């Protein structure tokens, strides 16, 4: 099943904090909504130790964690369920850590992001974070730019010969295919 969730921010943000529900697997009554910071610098997902204790989470393992200033602490691991909209990870081991931030009490690490595809866009001065699972395709902006340059050059040559097909081989007209790309300036409509 494909699931996805999107968070639209009102401005450009440098810290993406979104609501995230967590629960002890199989115990719906334990569900809580936390403020989760998306952090590609974190290998693992963490929750505030204070939240873990309030929820009655019990450790099932301990792991060394290297934090700021290369300090290592032994931190408890808990199995929880994570959900954001329809995006659900039914079982994941997360780390309980002391957190002093007033903005977030959870850090979503790379172990969550590797479940699917994540994109961050900043169009029209607004940050949008969107993610889905499972991963469906490779997004390669560099290849897209290379392709549109190549196709535009080919299209200009073909156009002189009266050929309006898109050079990508789709069989569509240029205007309905790569000619409509976000990489090209929008044509004025009369």
């Amino acid at each position, binding site marked *: 099943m494909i699931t996805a969730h999107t968070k639209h921010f009102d401005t450009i943000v440098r*810290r993406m904090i979104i609501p995230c529900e967590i629960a*002890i*697997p*199989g115990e719906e009554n334990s569900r809580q909504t936390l403020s989760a*910071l998306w*952090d590609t*610098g*974190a*290998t*693992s997902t*963490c929750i505030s*130790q204070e939240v873990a*204790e309030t929820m009655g989470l*019990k*450790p*099932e*393992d*301990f*792991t*060394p*964690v*290297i*934090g*700021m200033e290369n300090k290592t602490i032994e*931190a*408890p*691991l808990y*199995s929880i369920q994570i959900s954001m909209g329809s995006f659900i990870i*039914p*079982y*994941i*081991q997360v*780390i*309980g*850590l002391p957190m002093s*931030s007033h903005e977030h009490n959870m*850090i979503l*690490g790379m172990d969550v992001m590797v479940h699917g595809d994540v994109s961050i866009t900043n169009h029209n001065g607004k940050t949008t974070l969107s993610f889905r699972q499972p991963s469906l395709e490779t997004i390669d902006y560099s290849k897209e730019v290379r392709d549109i340059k190549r196709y535009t050059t080919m299209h200009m040559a073909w156009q002189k010969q009266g050929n309006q097909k898109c050079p990508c081989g789709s069989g569509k007209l240029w205007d309905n295919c790569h000619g409509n790309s976000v990489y090209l300036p929008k044509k004025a409509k009369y």
Partner: protein
Amino acid sequence: MENNIKKQILYYNEHKDDLLKQYNHKYIVVSPELQVSSFDALSEGFTYGVENYGYGNFLLKDFTTPTQQVHIISPTIARI
């Protein structure tokens, strides 16, 4: 913080190399009686542990990924 798995952790530390060799790429559950069971998925290990030993009374170890250090670095830089 309540910790009901001290005995299991001691057992794990004493037998770490053997357990890693025997249960590589698996999840293992170590019971209060120090019995070891292995599973292919975290969900299976967690469910088995809760049903048989009660929540919080078992060690659940992940041998599916190579041992790696956990890094959590999220600095907030104050602008003055």
